[in-house]
C-alpha cells in the first residue's frame, strides 16, 4: 500500500507544472494543454481523498470536472481558430491589440 502523501505530492507537482506552463508558454494551444494538466492534477487529488475516505462524492466531482474540461477545451480551441483566422498566429505575445 503506497501511502497517501505520494499521491498528493505527485498531484501537487503536476498542478504546479501546469500553472508554470500556463504562465510561461507562449503558444495558445500549449497553454490549453497545461490547463488540462492542472485539471487532471485536481482529479488525482480528488480521487486520492475519495479512496482514502471511502466516500464516492469526490469521484462524482471528478466526472463533472472531466466533462467541464472537455467543454472548456472545445470552446477554447474554437476561439483560437477564430483568432487564427484574423491574425494568422497562435502566439500569445502577438495577440496584443488590447492593453492598458
Amino acid at each position, binding site marked *: 500500500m503506497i501511502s497517501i502523501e505520494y499521491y498528493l505530492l505527485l498531484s501537487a507537482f503536476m498542478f504546479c507544472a501546469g500553472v508554470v506552463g500556463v504562465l510561461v508558454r507562449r503558444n495558445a494551444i500549449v497553454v490549453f494543454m497545461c490547463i488540462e494538466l*492542472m485539471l487532471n492534477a485536481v482529479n488525482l487529488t480528488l480521487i486520492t481523498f475519495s479512496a482514502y475516505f471511502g466516500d464516492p462524492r469526490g469521484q462524482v*466531482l471528478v466526472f463533472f470536472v472531466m466533462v467541464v474540461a472537455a467543454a472548456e477545451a472545445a470552446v477554447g480551441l474554437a476561439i483560437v481558430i477564430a483568432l487564427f483566422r484574423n491574425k494568422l498566429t497562435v502566439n500569445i505575445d502577438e495577440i496584443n491589440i488590447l492593453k492598458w
Partner: protein
Amino acid sequence: MIEQILSNMWYIRPEIALTITCLAAILADVFFKRKALVAGVVLGGLLASGVLLMEQYGVSAPAFSHMLAVDPFSVYFRGVILVTAMFVVLFSLSSVEINNPRLRVGEYYALIVAMTLGMTLMAGSSNMLMMYLSLELTSLSSYILAGFTKNAPASAEASLKYVIFGALSSGLMLYGISILYGLTGSLDIYAINHVLMTMGANRLALLIAGVLIMAGFGYKISAVPFHFWTPDVYEGAPVTITAFLSVASKAAGFSMLMRFMKVTFIDSTFAGPVGTWALIPGFEFTNILIVLSVLTMTLGNLVAVWQKNVKRLLAYSSIAHAGYMLMGLVVLGNDGFAAVLIYFVIYMFMNLGAFFVVMLVSNKTGSEHIDTYKGLGSRAPLLSVAMAIFLVSLTGLPPTAGFIGKLYLFAALINAKMIWLAIVGALNSVVSLYYYVLIFRNMFLREGTGSTEPLKFALSDNIILFLLLIPTLVLGLYFTPLVQFAQYSVAMFGVR
C-alpha cells in the same frame, strides 16, 4: 429518495423555466430563423422565470440534499440577475453591433439564457460541486459571448484572454476545493463548517485552500490581482455583453462568495451581538479580503484616469466598484452584507445606464473614444443629461442612488470601527470623480470637432433609458423599501 427529488423540483422552477427557454430559443432559431421571434421567446422565458421566482419569496429551505439553498438571499440575487438579463436582451434589440446581418443572433440569445441559468444557480449553490458547475456554466457561455462579434479582431482577442484567465482561475479554485475536501471529507459547505468547528483542521492547509478558492471568486468579481482579463474583455466584447458581465456576473460572483464565506468559515459558537458573526478562530480570511478590497478599488480608480476608450474606462470603474463592495464583506455583520445587497440594485441601474448610453452613442457614431463625446451636450441633450446623472451616481454624490449605496457601505464600516477603511473608500471616490468629470466636461464644455447635427434616437431607446434613469434618481430619495428588502434578504438558510 425519489419522492424527495420530485418534491424538490418546486424549488428550481425558475431554473427549469430558464432551461426550457434556452432550448426553445435554439429550436426557434433553427426552425424559423427570425431574430425578433428568438428575442421574444427569450424575454418571455425570463419573465416567466421571474414570476416563478416571486413565489419563492419568504421560503427558506435546502433543496436536493443541500445542493442548493433556497432562501431570501438567493431570491434577492436571482432577482437582480434576471432583471439585468431582461435589460440586456432589450439593449441587444437596438444594438447595431449585434444586429449585424453577418452574425447569427439565435445562438446569442440562447447563450444569454444559459449564462443567466448559470448565474441564478451560483446564487443558490451550497455545495462545492454545484458552485463549480454553475460557475463554469456561466463562464463557458460568457467566453463565447465575449467573442461573439468574432470578425472583429479585438473581440476574438478578448475572448481568448478571457478563456485563458478563466480556465486558470477555475483550475486554482478547483485545487482549493480538492484540498478543502481532503481536510473535511465533504463537499457540502454546511458539513464542512461542522467538521471545521468540531474537529478543526490544519490552519496552513485551510489558508491555502481559502486563498486558492478566493482566486476563483476574485476572477468572477474581477478583484485585483485577478482582474487582468476585465479591461480587455470589457473593451473587446460587444457593449451589451460588457454591461451584462459588469453587473450580473459580478452579482453572481458576490452572492457565491458571500454564501461561501458566511456558511463555511463562520464560528457557530460566537456569542456576540445579534447580526454580527466571527470567522473560525485563527483563520485570517478577513485580512485577505481587506487587502483585496483596498488594492481593487485603488488600482481600478487610478488606472481609469488614463483611459481614452469609455468602455475601458467603465471597465476600470467597475473594478473599483467591486473593491467598494468587498468592504461590505469585511465588516462580518448583517449590516455590511445588507449594504452590499443595496449597492447591487443601485449599481445595476446606474452601470447598465452608463453602458446603454455608450451603446447608443456608438450605434450612431461607431466610436467609443472619449473624444466622440465632445459637444454631445448640444447634439443629444437628453442622452447627455442622463449620462451625467449616471456618472454622478457612480461617483456616489447626492441626490442620486449611488450616494445611498455608498452611505450604507460606509455606515456599516464605521459601526464596525473600521474608520480607516472607510477613509480609503472615500478618497477613492474622490479619484473616481476626476475621470467621471472628464466625460462630463467633454459632453458639455467642449466643442465637437466633427459633425454637429443632432442625434435622433428611437422611442424604444428613450423608454429603456428612462426605465434606468428613473430608479437611479428615485432610489436616491425614496430608498426605505429597498433597504428593508435588503435587510430582510440577508437571511440565509440555516445561518443565524
